[in-house]
């Protein structure tokens, strides 16, 4: 039988292995069916166990009633003994299957939860930088962290509701067989009881939603206060924002109280209705007994059934609720899972030659092999765009489409908004496909990057952009994520990036632990660790975008010198306007309006090219006149 955590091969697999079949994303309903199939029969077994777990509740009242009639009233100790033994056995069977059911439910729940998380991770691995272009990262994450839980809840409620349908029918058969009048009352009254509470549920849910919204706003405010705490303690404003928080806290409390009072109404009604139902049942029963149509034992067992039947009916409403929520979650999951990479490798991809010149057709830029080329541009985003093209990255120029349903939209308007979102997603995918069709426009030697395998491109050209991120883990893993460097190589990278102070500041040196995203390091330290990592990767072609923007002049000068030395003989491209880098460049290229305006040696250009001087010297001398 399947167990957790499930193995998942969907979307992504290690090189050389085949990826498993993807989930069914044609509709939320099909997706949920796929999720159930993913459980491999566990839900069906769970349903069967559920029936056995409820055996004491199904058969218990009947056995008890029989024992009263035959044993107590009939004064037959052996009948009492048999009844007691049967009841005991039923209890034991129920307890045993209760544990089996609990184990199975935990399994199905976790298979859904872990399975969904694993699929999201693999989707991110498969799509790379394209995924955040299409969906907001927050939603990608919430599919893994909260929608996955809804799928787990769905498997549980299906097993439970399934078993209760069976036991409901069994109880129905027993009561109808014992007394048609009483049986019909029990079977009809139970749904009515739960049904009366329904009109009160809608206002409750509305209030609970208001409470949730206010609470989440309150959490945002607290997070906001912490995020800006340096300013609040440095400059001031504690009173204002403390008061704003308190005001919101009170309004959250009001919403909570209002929801709680409705909850109290429903609880009270529950007490009232089920109490009245029991009295009614017993009153009817006593008249049946007096009329001789019912024994006293049967009456007692009806009391038991009356109490029991409220459970299954509640479960059916819960079932409806949870399935609806699972459908909403399925829609969100589909939005992530259905997205496919815009590119696929040619059947026989060409091999890249790392020793060739890297050039870009749009700007006319060429990086000479084995040299340090510095790209200068008055607009930093222009050189960033060039770096994207040189590395075959799609630029971050899309508005990711949210799948979060808008508040207050219902029925047709909601469906329209939904298909609008689907259309916008398809539009982005189509645009990506358009961009990746045909030649890419940048080439290494004579090979257009689109004609090589993407993995080959990534291995050959490493672009370290300004968004480069550090990951939680040891400093050693931050510099050497692939675990293939020698210590000497790692040290060299660290020294070249002038990041020795980070090592020094870490308790435990290489084994010192970085927080997530390198939080806890200063901006300059983070940047230098990122640079050290890029250098340590030892890519044949390295493209660095603004690698030292957060670093002081002293350090920047050292880094530029060391990087030039380390990368000697291998193609290196640096996008920056800092003279400290230009000084070490073999070749300098000035970019304006996505075109190479001029190129040459820094010294020559500074002396002879007014356009170049205007851009580079602005940082130096623009201030002199100011």
């Amino acid at each position, binding site marked *: 039988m399947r167990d957790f955590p499930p193995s998942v091969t969907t979307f992504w697999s290690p090189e050389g292995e085949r990826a498993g079949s993807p989930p069914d994303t044609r509709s939320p309903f099909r997706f949920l069916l796929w999720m159930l199939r993913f459980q491999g029969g566990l839900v069906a077994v769970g349903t069967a166990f559920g029936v056995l777990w409820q055996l004491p509740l199904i058969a218990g009242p009947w056995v008890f009633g029989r024992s009263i009639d035959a044993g107590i009233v009939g004064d037959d100790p052996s009948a009492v003994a048999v009844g007691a033994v049967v009841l005991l056995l039923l209890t034991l069977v129920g307890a045993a299957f209760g544990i089996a059911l609990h184990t199975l439910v935990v399994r199905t729940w976790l298979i859904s939860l872990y399975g969904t998380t694993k699929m999201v991770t693999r989707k991110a691995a498969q799509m790379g930088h394209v995924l955040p272009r299409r969906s907001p990262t927050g939603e990608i994450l919430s599919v893994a962290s909260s929608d996955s839980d809804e799928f787990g809840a769905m498997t549980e409620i299906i097993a439970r509701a399934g078993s209760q349908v069976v036991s409901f029918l069994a109880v129905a058969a027993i009561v109808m067989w014992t007394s048609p009048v009483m049986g019909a009352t029990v079977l009809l009254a139970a749904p009515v009881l739960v049904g009366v509470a329904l009109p009160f549920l809608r206002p409750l849910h509305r209030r609970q939603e208001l409470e949730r919204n206010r609470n989440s706003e309150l959490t945002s405010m607290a997070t906001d206060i912490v995020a800006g705490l340096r300013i609040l303690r440095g400059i001031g404003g504690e009173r204002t924002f403390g008061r704003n928080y308190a005001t919101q806290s009170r309004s959250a409390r009001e919403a909570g109280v209002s929801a709680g009072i409705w909850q109290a109404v429903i609880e009270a009604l529950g007490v009232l209705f089920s109490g009245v139902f029991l009295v009614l049942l017993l009153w009817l029963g006593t008249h049946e007994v007096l009329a001789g149509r019912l024994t006293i034992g049967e009456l*007692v067992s009806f009391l038991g059934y009356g109490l029991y039947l409220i459970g299954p009916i509640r479960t059916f409403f819960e079932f409806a609720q949870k399935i609806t929520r699972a459908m909403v979650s399925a829609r969100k999951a589909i939005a992530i899972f259905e997205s496919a990479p815009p590119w696929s490798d040619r059947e026989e991809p060409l091999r890249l030659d790392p020793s060739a010149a890297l050039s870009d057709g749009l700007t006319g830029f060429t990086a000479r092999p084995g040299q340090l080329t510095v790209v200068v541009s008055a607009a930093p985003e222009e050189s960033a765009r060039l770096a994207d093209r040189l590395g075959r990255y799609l630029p971050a120029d899309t508005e990711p489409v949210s799948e979060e349903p808008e508040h207050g939209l219902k029925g047709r308007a909601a469906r329209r908004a939904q298909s609008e979102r689907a259309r916008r997603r398809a539009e982005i995918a189509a645009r990506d496909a358009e961009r990746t069709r045909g030649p890419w426009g940048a080439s290494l030697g004579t090979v257009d990057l689109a004609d090589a395998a993407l993995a080959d491109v990534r291995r050959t050209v490493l672009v370290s952009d300004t968004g480069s991120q550090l990951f939680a883990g040891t400093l050693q893993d931050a510099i050497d994520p692939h675990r293939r460097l020698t210590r000497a190589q790692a040290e060299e990278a660290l020294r070249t990036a002038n990041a020795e102070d980070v090592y020094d500041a870490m308790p435990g040196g290489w084994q010192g632990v970085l927080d997530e995203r390198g939080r806890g390091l200063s901006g300059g330290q983070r940047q230098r660790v990122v640079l050290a990592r890029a250098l340590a990767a030892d890519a044949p072609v390295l493209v660095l975008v603004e690698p030292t923007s957060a670093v002081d002049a002293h350090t920047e000068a050292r880094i530029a010198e060391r990087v030039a030395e380390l990368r000697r003989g291998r193609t290196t491209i640096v996008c920056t306007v800092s003279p400290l880098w230009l000084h070490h460049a073999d070749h300098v290229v000035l970019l304006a309006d996505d075109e190479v305006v001029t190129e040459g040696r820094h010294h020559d250009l500074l002396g002879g090219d007014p356009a170049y001087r205007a851009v580079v010297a602005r940082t130096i001398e623009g201030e002199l006149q100011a």
Partner: protein
Amino acid sequence: MTITDPLATSADTWSDHSADPPVVDPRLRPPDEASVGERVASWRMRHHLRREEADRVYAASRNPERGWPVAGDRAVLDFFRDLIGRRRRMFVVLIALNALAAGAGLVVPRLLGTLVDRTVQGDGAGLDSLAWLVVAVVAAQAVLTFFAQRTSTLFGQDLLASAREYIVRVILRLPVGQVESASTGDLVTRVTRDVGTMSRSVQFGVPMAIISILTVSLSVVAMLANSVLLAVPSLMIIATSAYAVRGYLRRAPRGYITEGSTYSRINTTLTETVEGARTVEALGLSGRRVRQGDDDIEVSAQAERYTMSLRNLLFTVIDVAFNTPRVATLAFGAWGYAQGWLTLGQITSAVLYVEALSGPLDRLVGELDRLQVGATSTARLLGIAEVPPDREPTDARPDGPALVGRDLRFAYREGHDVLHGIDVDLRTGERLAVVGPSGSGKSTLGRLLSGINRPRTGSATVGGVELVDLPLELLRTEVALVTQEHHVFIGSVRDNIVLAREDSPDEAVRAALAAVGSLDWVERLPQGLDTRIGSGQHVLTPAQAQQIALARLIIADPHTLVLDEATSLIDPRTARSLEGSMNALLEGRTVVAIAHRLHTAHDADRIAVVIDGRIVELGSHHELVDREDGEYAALWRAWTS
């Protein structure tokens, strides 16, 4: 002075990963083939290993290596006692109403029993009036339930609101020095996840536990009143579960805390993978990230198996212990009936009581469980309050704006001074640029000169008074540290600007906005100064956000500004357009500019070059550039050539 190689210990700390422990202890995998006895033994060992892990995680969560402190159990108890103590009347009403509601509920089975007895007697006399009596009791029970629940809600929500407001007040009082240096990640986790966990236990846990205890004890009384003969065996059977319940309650919270921490690991890893998708792709890390995600899940699955086993052990006992009383009631009922000690009605009532008891008992176990998990979160929240204040303001008031630093030394780690006796005299109205390599101590110098930290030795004074002896409200209007951190708070534009002087009139706010050149766009906002900005509200451009940050300082109006460039990444696209706003702020103030761009330094009246915690050069740009072998001159040449 000897310069030691910072990488001197590299050989000792580098790992070849051969000694890395496996993600999941291999002993935690069940054997493939084994006899039943071996299987049970192996399961017991696994369970034991998982318990050790849970104990470890719990211990670590109570004594974190890094981050803010965690309070002890005593502080948590005192906190709750105090919260409840301040609502004594409400608490008494809560108890009374719930006792009445539970009591009414316990009368019903008794009356139903009587109804059965009357039926057995066979004359049917008074049946209808008895039925009506039950209906009346049920109605009373419903009304009491409503009021009892309503009181619990009011009580729980009130408790919760004061608890969370207290925590935020504490956060807003944290010492400035610590806030400047500590990572905020830990605090964010505490105000989100821990407040969430605490909320559940304060809002529902506390009242529910009280109600369950009441109901259980009253039920016991009712059972005994109905029939001692039927009640005692049942209660004894239920009592047998006490041992298992205690064991569960002792262990489960640690299990759940461990489970929670594995889920936050899963989320952290995935968040990094998704947000750093491009980095992952560029460096070919997909395989590693997928494996790391799978490893996190393996670890989490072990934590889940532990709590699953704990629950299974508990359920085994309580399922039997809560259900066998029915059998006992039947057996003893038959015996007592035969002896003539009992009526059928009493047996019926006893069965109903036994059925009614298991609900609150179950709930009680669940609530106690959750309360303990909530208590650990509360301990983490109260830990924030244990950070001692870093300054005691005195009554001394500065007699002028002269800012002076004498023999300044400072160490973040004991024995590791980053400043080695710096003397600095600020001339009123001058611009002093501080340049130097990173790690040279220039940012630290800035923090001492703005009164964020107290120097280890020496003094930093304004108008003759130690900066750290001034009340914060006053300090902020004397000197401000500007870190270019342009956080926009959730709140109105006005709220975002008046920080330093919170009672500023609108004219002052407008004037500040006008000074930095943003009055135009603010007035075009839908509600002007009342427009809500910040995360999730009206979105500002980066340049607008920076203008807001500058307007705050205009309102603060300190005579001295310490600008620290190095602590933030200035967006080069907005830097240029903000020059005007920046100049408006700097006009007429003394400025210490900690610069990493040389052009900033060039404009200054004087430049201090800080290397290894000392000022090695001090003078105007021209003086320094002219020194042949000077540090600054060398840099300037590299910059301009």
